[in-house]
């Protein structure tokens, strides 16, 4: 089990490791946002989602916006995520998201530095041979996001 209190610590994006726990607290800036997609769900109607590229001074990652978040956040917004989750979504895409118990809030705009590489969603992760409960980086699939190309 993670140490008690670990939930309250804030991480930088380069420290993200895929895990099935709602414990990611971090702050990032939204760099880009894709067009929205509406998914049909048999049990709870339609829930809109929208992929975005977010980053801080250490790394970038794909952040999946859900429902009202799609409208609430724009490129250039600085967002604080509490209780987020970094895990595989629909098979093999590795995304950060607030999840049902997490919360994303706009706390500012524009004034944050960022890097676009490494992108934590563009890594291949494997089980740590020493501790199978943990994931470790195996390889870089792409240094930059393959969904959102850098502007040059």
């Amino acid at each position, binding site marked *: 089990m993670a140490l008690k209190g670990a939930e309250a610590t804030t991480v930088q994006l380069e420290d993200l490791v895929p895990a099935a726990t709602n414990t990611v607290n971090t702050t990032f800036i939204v*760099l*880009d946002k894709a067009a929205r997609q509406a998914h049909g769900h048999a049990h709870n109607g339609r829930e809109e989602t929208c992929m975005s590229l977010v980053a801080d001074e250490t790394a970038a990652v794909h952040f999946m916006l859900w429902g*009202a*978040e799609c409208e*609430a*956040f724009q*490129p*250039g917004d600085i967002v*604080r995520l509490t209780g987020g989750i970094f895990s595989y979504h629909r098979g093999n895409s590795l995304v950060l998201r607030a999840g049902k118990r997490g919360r*994303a*809030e*706009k*706390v500012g*705009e*524009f*004034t944050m*530095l960022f890097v676009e590489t490494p992108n934590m969603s563009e890594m291949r992760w494997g089980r740590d041979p020493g501790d199978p409960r943990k994931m470790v980086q195996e390889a870089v699939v792409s240094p930059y996001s393959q969904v959102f190309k850098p*502007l*040059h």
Partner: protein
Amino acid sequence: MAPPRLLAGGEHHPSPTTPSSPEHPLLAAHLLLPTPSASDLSSPHLPHALAFSFLTDPSSPLPRRLLVLLHAAGARFPAFYSAFASALLSLPFPLLLPHPRARLLLAAAELARAAAPGFAPLLLSLLRRVPFHGDARLLDIIRDNSPFLAAEEPQLLASAVFAFLRLLARNRLDPVLPSPRAECVNNCEECKHVKNLEECREKLVSFCVSVLRDHFQPCSLIGRDLVLSLHELVLVPEFQGLWKDLMSERAAVDIGWVSTPGWCTALAISPEMEIQLLFLMKNVKWGSQKRYQLWFARKHLMVPGGEERVPDIVRFICCGYHPTNEVIQSGVIARWAIIGWLLTSCSKGYVAANVKLALFYDWLFFDEVKGNVMNIEPAMLLMVNSVSQYVDITNMLLEFLFLLIDNYEVRRKEAIAQCVRCAFTVLVKKGVVPSLDVLMCCEKLSPLLRQKLVAFLSSSSPGAAEEACGKQINEVSKAAELKRVCSN
């Protein structure tokens, strides 16, 4: 019942009950003192609690007991008014809901009426928000107090005139329709009768003209950007007489020699623009600026009336922010590059012309003793650094500079030419560029412009041109020889 809200913001903004919300200090004080009264005069929470009551009390007009309490506290504690004004200033203006926003203007009017400490910064910050829904009250506040302001707060009066002149100049180019009326949740009379400056243009014009006539001294604090603005408005009939008088008294010429202070150029852009531009120019490294530029453009330029603000932004960059050598050498994006981006993003020809004028304006009055080389540096570096890849920009700017010399003010033509020559010389002397060879001997530059430049720099003061170019120039016809010399 939940306490009323001050700021707009849905579930993805921090809740006012959390410390990260800008609403929190006011709400927290309100919860401690929900109905502030005379017995709370010494409470440290009173400034914030009273500010909350001022902004949210639904009754219209504002209950007298709140005004009485404000002045009782102000009379008892000298620092109270300033603390109250700072509490009002701490809220992000763009997010203020309609009722608190109308009430903020009422509070500013009350502080100004009482000449209470703290009213000047509050009014200055509101002037930078023009145009906004309900901004006509700001004109009333300044106008009602203008004799007092002229005597006691000349900088504030000058700021108001400048902010209004810039609004008029921008609106002349592209009249912005009044922003839609946002509904006040209390449906109160005050909010219903709120007016925009666009609706009272005549009142605004006559205010500016009368202050410029009656209180020219404080207005001269604006410096040469006052001349720039009046020149832009010279076709507006009400300003014509004023302009003629200023010209005949030579006041317009004299004031042209005064550099516009940085605080003044900052008035013509919003605080958000300033914060974002400064962040770009202080923190963002070369090569990483693209996304920031896109966000800035989306937020501030690609909105109604946005492009018309670019000349004001360029004035701010030239005169309002002078980086230290440390910043210049730290690899962050330079001022000239930001201006190059802004210039090339203008789609309207008349805006682009005003941007170029804004960029060269300090050249037209440049004086070796009083002139600040940092005001003229961006134009020079933009011309020089565009030569290799974007020579069209260099040609365009140089051509515009010659147009300005010949046509901007025909009566002062020779004086302007002398100032521009002096600007070139000082830029070399101060090491902004090693020499003018980069322009005078540049193969890529249009030959006609190059010839004109060589002739211009050598005419009347050949010494300056020699010094600048570091080469002997005897005749313009020796351009071919010059080319040979320089290419060695």
